[in-house]
């Protein structure tokens, strides 16, 4: 596993964040390859969002994790746990070597996040649960007059769960503009295209009708994510909803936009090829930023 130099401060440096995304993708693939298990496509699809949230937006560190006024993050699409583990390791919540136990007997690092893992706020994995819990946390913050925010990330396939819409009603009813809901809209779920499995669109109109301030963003464009989250809250008195256009499996050409990679584990050859693509991406990044090596990698 890659050795990490951990850091705890937030950064505006989009070049640095882009390098971090490459590192996280390498960690995700390494974890899944060595565990011979995991959710490859979804982790690669949401990792840029997590990168920007943890390294630029949210005030969540190992040092403040017991503080009542820390920001909160709920990983509602719990299956994409490898992305979360990579970012939490990088943020210093646990040594990266711990990830070598992923899905192994007796490990705290199961295939969906639990509070046994430092930095995990809530046990998730059954879909359609995270938003309600986030609503409760945001409501408590409002009642206590605290200024911290609550973030949750949902998959798009997850939106078929009715509880998502129950929770959405309550978020708008209680005017939770401290709640930030992000949808990883990669248009794929385990059986195929979301629109073929159970049509979701028009999502913008649906979320707006449920009372959200809806914004769109390219979920892989670091600079766009940075500036979007900098604009929070989008509209006072309304919960925030970010429809992030993403590509499932983003960053590795032969994994991208293919439902078969929902929880497919790369073969040795595929793993090597994927690492090569990420090495190429890193080289391209270095040329772009004329830096010797990615910061702190």
């Amino acid at each position, binding site marked *: 596993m890659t050795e990490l130099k951990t850091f705890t401060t937030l950064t505006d440096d989009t070049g640095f964040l882009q390098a971090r995304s490459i590192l996280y993708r390498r960690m995700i693939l390494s974890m899944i390859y060595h565990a011979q298990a995991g959710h490859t496509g979804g982790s690669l699809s949401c990792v840029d969002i997590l990168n920007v949230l943890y390294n630029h937006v949210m005030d969540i560190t190992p040092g403040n994790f017991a503080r*009542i006024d820390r920001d909160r993050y709920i990983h509602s699409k719990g299956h994409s746990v490898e992305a979360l583990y990579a970012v939490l390791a990088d943020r210093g919540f646990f040594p990266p070597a711990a990830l070598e136990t992923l899905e192994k007997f007796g490990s705290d690092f199961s295939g969906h996040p*639990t*509070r046994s893992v430092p930095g995990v*706020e*809530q*046990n*998730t*994995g*059954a879909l*359609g*649960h995270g*938003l*309600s*819990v*986030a*609503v*409760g*946390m*945001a*409501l*408590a*913050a409002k*009642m*206590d007059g605290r200024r911290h925010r609550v973030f949750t990330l949902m998959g798009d396939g997850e939106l078929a769960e*009715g*509880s998502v819409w*129950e*929770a959405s*009603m*309550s978020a708008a*009813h209680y005017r939770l503009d401290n709640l930030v809901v992000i949808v990883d809209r990669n248009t794929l779920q385990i059986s195929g295209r979301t629109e073929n499995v159970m049509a979701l669109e028009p999502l913008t109109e649906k979320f707006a009708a449920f009372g959200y301030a809806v914004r769109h963003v390219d979920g892989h464009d670091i600079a766009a994510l940075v500036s979007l989250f900098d604009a929070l809250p989008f509209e006072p008195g309304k919960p925030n909803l970010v429809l992030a256009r993403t590509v499932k499996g983003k960053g590795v050409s032969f994994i991208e936009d293919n439902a078969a990679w929902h929880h497919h584990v790369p073969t040795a050859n595929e793993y090597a090829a994927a690492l090569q693509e990420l090495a190429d991406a890193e080289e391209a990044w270095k040329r772009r930023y004329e830096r010797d090596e990615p910061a702190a990698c």
Partner: protein
Amino acid sequence: MNLPPAKANLDVFAETLGALAAQNRDLLVLTSDSRGSGKLGPFGQQFPDQLIEMGIAEQNLVGVAAGLAAAGKKVFAVSPACFLTARALEQIKNDVAYSDRPVKLIGISAGVSYGALGNTHHSLHDLAALQAIPNIDIVVPADNVETRAAILAALEHPRPLYIRFGKRPMPTLHAPETRFEIGKAIRLTPERDRYAVAFIACGETVVHAVAASELLRQDGLDCCVLSLHSLRPFDKAAVIEAAHRAEAVMTVEEHSVNGGLGSRVAALLMQTGIFCPLHIVGIPDEHTVTGSQSEIFQHYGISPEGLAQTARQLL
């Protein structure tokens, strides 16, 4: 025995919450359009900031309760037991129990309290379902004294907790100063070296077990009645001690005969090597008849005469 009915356990629950709320501003009550059914109208008027309406959405009710508890609130999530523990079972399992959020789940009008409304409104599965989920304590108070004590204990209870009760006025079985502890059964009859029958009962059936034991005493049969108000933690020692001294054991519950108190007691006794005659009284494995709670109890033998008759057959 002819105890006068006191209040409904539901009323005692609502009054107790009201008494606690003034001193505990972190105490929150969540309802699913159930403030009327929960007798919480006065609470809502007195403490409008401490009653949060979630609408008819039990899954969200439980998930939001978990989020509030995670933020340090002392949350009582109140909804009819039938909906709370079936519709929102996955939220109870994952968001509350698995995530270890000390939410107090209050199942109102439990069992067949809504008997005449049909099986949609019965909760005869809840004890079985929740006993199969780790890390949630389960309390079924018998009378006003147990209910008040259970709600008081719930406030600072460190683990997820489910309390269920009905809405019919209940005779008071205990003196007000009776010691109540979650996980400790209470014996309602004098201690003897030998019992004819040990009745192990919970909730609103306990009063019938007490009355049955008095009928049997008129026949010269001394019985033991345990109010086993906590299904988890389960007071194994009290059950074993009562069974050891008894010729026969009868369990009584307002729940399916499958997976509730009776199944728990039977498994315990078998595994402890206590092989005495045993009868599980509850609601049999069929669509429940329509009627009031007392009519349904009568129909299935959950009555002083019905229990006494079963006991005589067992001996």
